[in-house]
């Protein structure tokens, strides 16, 4: 994760001008850079000649379907070869995919903490959702807030979900820690209140290793705690581009793909 954080920090520096102009341009800039990096990684981790040959063969069999369309057995044989060729192509693309998938996934996870959620605004109410192990523990937990945060409604217990929910409001911008006490060791949770682009952690978890890696930006809750998770209801962020609202992942997917296709053509890389 340290490596990923360094990568994200570097990326952050690279896209400084775009950062100032808003998330849409930021997503575009990040997508283009990652599109370029990915095709370069693909170039150096794949068997370019084999991919070229396989793609050419696939195109040839596609053309054969058209050229010999009246020869039914030729057409059927061409289809079989297309399927075989597609399998061969996927196998050749799998090695670079294997190499790329892990760092890229972590990179996207880290970026999602900036671009996937909006930090809370001053005076904006939000929910603190604490999930515990047993229904009995619901009565034991209490919320302790720093002076900049205040409870705006009494807690609600949802026994079915073993969850207790507080409604809270922040007075001003900043990064705060709230504490949950009364269920074993006290557990804290970060709350980010900001007008700008900031890293947020929507949930803190006790176990669920994979979910913790992928969704939480905070250390695990203590093992002997009765608390399973503490979540803050940050509003999800939508990126507006050309008047359309997108989830940043969708935008990233499309733009990085388009950028990748452009770079692969310019750099003559077989993908």
């Amino acid at each position, binding site marked *: 994760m340290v490596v990923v954080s360094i990568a994200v920090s570097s990326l952050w520096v690279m896209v400084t001008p775009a950062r100032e102009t808003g998330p849409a341009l930021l997503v575009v800039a990040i997508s283009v850079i*990652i599109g370029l990096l*990915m*095709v370069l*990684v*693909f170039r150096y981790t794949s068997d370019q000649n084999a991919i070229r040959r396989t*793609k*050419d*063969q*696939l*195109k*040839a*069999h*596609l*053309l054969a*379907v*058209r*050229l*010999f*369309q*009246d*020869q039914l*057995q*030729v*057409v059927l044989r061409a*289809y079989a070869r*297309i*399927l075989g*060729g*597609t399998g061969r*192509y*996927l196998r050749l*693309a*799998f090695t*670079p*995919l*294997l*190499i*790329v*998938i*892990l760092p*890229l*996934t972590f990179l*996207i*996870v880290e970026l*999602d903490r900036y671009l*996937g959620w909006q930090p809370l605004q001053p005076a904006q109410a939000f929910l603190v959702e604490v999930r515990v192990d047993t229904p009995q523990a619901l009565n034991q937990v209490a919320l302790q807030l720093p002076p900049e945060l205040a409870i705006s409604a009494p807690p609600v217990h949802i026994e079915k979900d073993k969850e207790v929910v507080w409604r809270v409001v922040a007075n001003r911008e900043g990064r705060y820690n709230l504490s949950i006490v009364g269920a074993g060791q006290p557990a804290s949770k970060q709350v980010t209140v900001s007008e700008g682009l900031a890293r947020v952690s929507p949930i803190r978890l006790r176990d669920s290793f*994979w*979910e913790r890696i*992928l*969704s939480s930006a905070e250390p695990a809750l203590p093992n002997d705690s009765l608390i399973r998770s503490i979540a803050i209801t940050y509003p999800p962020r939508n990126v507006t581009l050309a008047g359309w609202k997108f989830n940043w*992942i969708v935008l*990233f*997917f499309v733009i*990085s*793909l388009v*950028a*990748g*296709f452009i770079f*692969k053509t310019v750099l003559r890389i077989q*993908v």
Partner: protein
Amino acid sequence: MKLFGLRKNNARWLLLLVGCLLLFPVRSEAYAGPGAGFAVLSSFWTIFVAFLYSFYALLTWPFRQLLRFRRRRKAYGKALIKRVVIVGFDGMDPELADRFMAEGRLPHFAQLREKGTFCPLRTTFPAISPVAWSTFQTGVNPGKHNIYDFLARDLSNYLPFLSSAQIKEPKRRLRIGKYSLPLGKPEIKGMRRGTPFWHWLGKAGVFCSVIRVPVTFPPEKFPGVLLSGMCVPDLKGTQGTFCLCSTRVQGDKFREGGVRIPIQRNGAKFHSYIPGPENPLGTGSELRLPFEIHPDAKRNRARISVDSENVTLNVGEYSEWIPVKFSAGLGFTAHGICRFYLKEISPELEVYVTPVNIDPGRPDLPISHPVTYSMYLAKLFGPYATLGLAEDTWALNEKVLDDDAFLAQCYSNHDDRERMFFDSLEKTPQGLCTCVFDTTDRVQHMFWRYLDENHPAVKDVPRDQRPKVIHDLYARMDRLIGRVMEQIDDKSLLLVISDHGFKSFARGVNLNAWLHQNGYLVLQDGKNESGDWFEDVDWSRTRAYTMGLNGLYLNIKGREREGVLSAGAESEALKEDLRGKLNGLVDPASGKVAITGMFNCDVIYAGPYVENAPDLIVGYGAGFRASRDSVMGKVTGTVFEDNIKAWSGDHCVDPRLVPGVLFSNRKITAEKPAIVDVAPTILKMFGLDLPTHFDGKPWTIAKAG
């Protein structure tokens, strides 16, 4: 075990992690980046397109079948055969085939002879490939298809032009400053007339694959696939211009087919360029593609960098086909392919570059029908030679290539064509599959000197050291036929044919010199010899001249620009005079007859294009042929000369001396079968009515078994 540099345990963990990520995706990692995106999109796209095609094909198939049913029933309903496979070996000689079969070198040909047919196949007048293959495909004599030689003459200036096709500049241009932008594509006009028999078959619903039959450029539309052969130009528009890049200081041109390009030194690097086509923007300049050579004298090799391609070659090694792009500016480009051959690295650096062929994967000129067929072959087998005369005989003649390098080039091209042919055979389970292989012609032209014990080109080579190149050539073709025989059944008719045979070309005859010495051709006062293409000829006093390989022309008033003879009696009298004097012309040095026949074209041809024919066809005796100077319209001081070039075998002689071959897997009954009979025979085998204008007569072919 190490996986991507990781130790076994770490690799296992990495695989586990990736597996988990793929198995249990949550919101953000559902997308794994362009790598996966490309893979998924590309493969999805392929499958999508394939199934779109399938859907279209399946949806329309019944309708198309219904539409074709009637035509097919007409074609295959009366057909005596399911499939016809024609393998053409350009220049395969019946006497040699007979001799090699007797020596046991050609078991598969011998098998055809035993179970089916082997006999000579009468050729055309003259016995030249473009003429004979035009007759093969149209079923008519040259008077009806208009091809009499590689070259035809321009009556307005006595200069030659390619007889089979003309490529003209786009008619309209837009001038912008120094540029002249072409508005439209170059106009390509096929000069061969008549209808190839596969057009008749296609119309009747018989599928045809036609590969590299000569004089099929530009490709004509018909219901089938066709790849053009002989007469396809290179990217410069010539019939093949090689270049020799060299640090040696010499002239810039070869007599035949090539140019010398200097290599400039710049530190450890060397620079040169490939000459390309003329700039299409009308600047009058030639496009050039620079390339770098990085020699490594210690390892006896060099790295060549051209465009973004890098290739390392040992001395005496060819590169694969390299794609090259000539940019003219304003987005105008010409795409080609060429091969490099590292000839020498020390003391001088020399690189031979093949003529730049039209790139079959993205052809700037159409070389196939449909245009996607050449692309299909390029995708399936990689780039391949598209030039009509792809085997660089000129480079061997000029000693730019040695025997081994030339043969390597020939057989590399041949292997590509074999692959194409066998693919075509597989793709044509019913219908016509025909392919012409040129290798037989080129290799015999260039290596007959080793077969002819007294050939002047190899006087210095001891007889026991002469390689058996032509023996090997025939054996190789025999193996090819063996593979064909394995892949066809009793329902297929196999015909192996050649357009002509071969004879030695030991002595050159300069007929222009003879005409000059005998007062038929007159040079300007004070001149004893002329330059190429009749430079210094006094046309006002010239009655006859020759250019090309076998044609002799009269200088007739109202036809030639400066004609002096009246058409009719005067011309006929001169023809008879020339026939009388030239027929039986004896070479004083050897005492052999150099000309065994003089044929009056008014007698041997019939058809609407007879007026474009030469007036007489010269039939040289065995061992003789028109000298190179004579072919190029040059008058020299001597009529006869030794041929000491590698181009040592030929067929441009009396056509009666060089019939082609006819092999078949079935018994064929015909009186003196001729190449003109092939087209009517094939139409008859598929049950089609014969067009009335055909000159050939169909053979009777026995049923299988």
